[in-house]
């Protein structure tokens, strides 16, 4: 049995679905059903959050391998099993997912009035898929969760979204699906090569370098779309703008992390040679993403679009960190992912607050909100600064570590990647000035109300975490110290070891040269 004494990972993965079944079985008139759905979803997600805190307490940070492992036979003849487990890299993302789901439920409390029951069901399904994906230790299981996310998200955007929801939902689904099916082929090739789809075995399997190149490209197709990296990021602004607030939160906070997590879990450790070979390519795309999308963000008139583009830029920093292959870079990437998960989620909630009141996301519709909404302005400033990477907030630690890591690789990479912080400050402060400060001239803004207690309850945990991560990052980095160190060591060894070359092409080439 595992460290918790019971299958905690499966429990937090599948419990939301049980809540979903409860929601669907409620009968009665519309108001009863809606209120029942809200409360059931909230309680389910809170219980899941409480259960996931067991991971926080019982997780052994000194152990680099997988913990809380559980395994059930599924298709034993083909080496496929239902295997779950977390290590330092994934454990915090499980917590991030379980934390954000109740927040999303709470944020949609009064806002969603249409098909509340189905809405809450979608978020619970989404939680199952997200948690399952971060826990999966079997490739087939991973793929199922990875793809399973698409269906609820497609419906959330399409049913509860804005005016162009159909276009955005299709674009989101088809972009991601196209990338993922190519990954499926890579998965099958690795499965065939290793004879098992157990990820703990695959992590130790050496793949021939020629094969690695193709596998890397297939993984890249999937993860690059999900991250999203420039130039396949175009689905993201559309999806974000049209999705309801809570949908945007999950999209930005967790779904984008799936791509980066994929790079960390598969590409870098399983395909070390190809990863090194492709690193300059990734760096180029990331730097373009950081600089280009920051400029695009500067020109946006729609608040959600601005934050969506800033997400692309921040995720560019993450991919730079991952492909530095050193401890600082990868730790920075992980920290930046967590920080971005909380901060970007909060930023979308912030936009949602005014959108719920005024029903517009146009920046020019606002101005001088600080007069009427002091608490809101405070929260706005806090997360804005965290997004900029102000020291003392979570954003700083991640970006700083990534720049340190990048500096060891290449000075220019660090310089250009670091430019994102400056440009980020530019567009965020510009946004702040136009929305929060200035003169309050718009008539309907004179009566706008400040945050309600429910909204404060939504922002409070995120604000606390942002400051905690910024002021005392060790409580978080300690989780992944050991795992990242082991990963970097594994990578160095793999690169130092003689290349597995079954066909002997490299040897023959070398002989031919002499």
């Amino acid at each position, binding site marked *: 049995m595992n460290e918790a004494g019971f299958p905690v990972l499966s429990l937090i993965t599948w419990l939301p679905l049980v809540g979903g079944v409860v929601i669907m079985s409620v009968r009665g008139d519309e108001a009863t059903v809606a209120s029942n759905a809200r409360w059931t979803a909230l309680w389910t997600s809170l219980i899941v959050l409480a259960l996931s805190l067991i991971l926080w307490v019982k997780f052994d940070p000194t152990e680099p391998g997988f913990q809380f492992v559980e395994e059930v036979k599924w298709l034993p003849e083909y080496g496929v099993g239902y295997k779950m487990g977390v290590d330092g890299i994934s454990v915090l993302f499980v917590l991030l997912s379980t934390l954000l789901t109740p927040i999303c439920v709470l944020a949609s409390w009064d806002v969603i009035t249409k098909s509340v029951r189905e809405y809450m069901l979608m978020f619970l399904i989404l939680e199952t898929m997200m948690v399952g994906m971060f826990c999966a230790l079997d490739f087939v299981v991973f793929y*199922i969760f990875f793809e399973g996310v698409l*269906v609820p998200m497609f419906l959330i955007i*399409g049913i509860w979204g804005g005016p162009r929801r*159909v276009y955005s939902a299709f674009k989101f689904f088809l972009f991601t699906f*196209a990338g993922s099916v190519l990954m499926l082929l890579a998965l099958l090739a690795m499965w065939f090569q290793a004879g098992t789809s157990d990820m703990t075995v695959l992590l130790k399997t050496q793949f021939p370098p020629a094969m690695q190149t193709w596998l890397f490209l297939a993984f890249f197709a999937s993860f690059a779309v999900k991250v999203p990296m420039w130039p396949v990021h175009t689905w993201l602004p559309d999806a974000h703008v049209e999705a309801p607030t809570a949908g945007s939160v999950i999209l930005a906070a967790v779904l984008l992390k799936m791509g980066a997590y994929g790079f960390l879990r598969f590409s870098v450790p399983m395909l070390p040679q190809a990863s090194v070979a492709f690193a300059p390519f990734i760096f180029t795309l990331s730097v373009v993403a950081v600089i280009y999308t920051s400029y695009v963000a500067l020109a946006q008139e729609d608040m959600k679009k601005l934050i969506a583009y800033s997400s692309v830029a921040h995720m560019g920093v993450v991919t730079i960190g991952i492909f530095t292959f050193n401890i600082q870079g990868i730790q920075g990437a992980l920290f930046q992912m967590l920080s971005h998960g909380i901060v970007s989620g909060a930023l979308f909630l912030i936009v949602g607050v005014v959108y719920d009141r005024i029903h517009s996301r146009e920046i020019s519709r606002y101005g001088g909100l600080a007069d009427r909404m002091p608490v809101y302005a405070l929260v706005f400033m806090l997360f804005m600064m965290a997004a900029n990477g102000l020291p003392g907030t979570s954003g700083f630690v991640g970006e700083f570590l990534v720049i340190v890591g990048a500096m060891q690789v290449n000075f220019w990479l660090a310089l250009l990647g670091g430019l994102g912080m400056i440009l980020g400050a530019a567009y965020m402060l510009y946004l702040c000035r136009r929305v929060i400060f200035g003169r309050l001239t718009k008539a309907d803004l004179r009566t706008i109300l400040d945050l309600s207690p429910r909204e404060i309850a939504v922002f409070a945990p995120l604000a606390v975490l942002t400051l905690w991560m910024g002021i005392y990052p060790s409580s978080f980095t300690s989780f992944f110290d050991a795992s990242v160190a082991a990963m970097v060591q594994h990578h160095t060894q793999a690169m130092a070891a003689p290349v597995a070359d079954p066909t002997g092409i490299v040897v023959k080439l070398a002989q031919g040269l002499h």
Partner: protein
Amino acid sequence: MNAPALMNWTLALPELVLAIVGMAILVFGVLRKGDATFPASMLTLGGFLLAAILVASRTPGVGFNGQFEVDSFSMFMKELLLAGAALSLILSLDYNRQEGLSRFEFPVLMLFAVVGMMIMTSASNMMTLYLGVELQSLSLYVLAAFARDDARSTEAGLKYFVLGALASGLLLYGIALVYGFSGTMDFAELTKLLTKPETASPGVIVGVVFILTGLMFKISAVPFHMWTPDVYEGAPTPVTVFFATAPKVAAMALVLRVMSTPFGHLLGSWQLLIILISIASMILGALGAIGQTNIKRLMAYSSIGHMGYALIGLAPGTPEGVRGVLVYMIVYVFMSAGAFACIIAMRRRGRAVEQISELSGLARTDPGLALGMAVFMFSMAGVPPLSGFFGKLYVFLAAVQSGLWALAVIGVLTSVVGAFYYLRIVKVMYFDAPAEAFDRRPAALSFVAAATGLFTTFFFIFPAPFVNAAQAAAKALF
């Protein structure tokens, strides 16, 4: 063939019993006064059930002087096609009554078609093969034109007949060529004769191509798919369900057996053909469906695409590949039957409607039906964890194992294109404004949709028994 003179007729007991039941129902239908459709249908269902039990209780062997073979492969396929036929028969009950098609010949024709299909799956001789194909086809021609006062249905029947007769001719010509150049029609003999591909005469190869052409017509693979959209659209919907399930299983069984057993060693000669047909079917199935407004036509293109995916598993010519095809067929039969159950439920003010736009806002007016349809659509698109994903998983695995990368890559890319039109149906049901509600649907439809929906949704929990059965069946061919 150790005992060539052996009759061993009990091997064909399920087929014999079913044929006798069919004739008994004919007599019963003629003698009985008033509408005999319902009792005849129930008797037919009982016949299917009895046949299924009898099939399961056979022990593998060869009978009828080597013309008829029962092995785990044929047993697997028979069970599957019986399930498909039974589901389509249940779906026909209320539809035929509402459309004024209540005639007891309907279940009987279905039954004889099934007998033909069962003979097809057990064929181990070219003659048996042809006999089965013709018994099946003749019944299907009549079924397609069953709504005889409806011009579209008559057109469908005629079209299917003319093109089907052509395909049968090609098949027969191929059989003749193979016989002429090899001197035998027996599968086992052919296997021995054709062990060395380099010694095979070109005449045999040409014969194989003709046989393949005839069979590809039956599974409606490109470029022999022309009839499919028209027949699917024109035929009464329960007949379309039947066309989409049982005959596809039987024809696929023939393709697998003929290509793997007698002509298995000629893999090098026919592999490219299968690859091209598979790619063409996937591409046409994906692109052709995009512009459709009639849901039955859309399903026709979808089934063309599905046959393309299933053929991916045949291309490697390995047991793993055949296993993939078999898993695909299980998944496909239940998915299609379920999707058609939802389509049959599309009735407004007593009239069947077939336009995709009629589904508008179904999620609001009938959440259960919309959910069912959405499950089938996502499953057909191959989205995990639904069963359609597993079907694709195993055929792609076989392609990857054999290094058929072009096939695999084109396959996954067309599945993205295919996802678009499946999603379009979900979009119409969930994102669009509600239209008028459909009529109350009969319990039988709900039952079939729910049963197949549960199978499709929860296949991922217990795939092992199905995959293992497919594995055992596939081994019997090699």
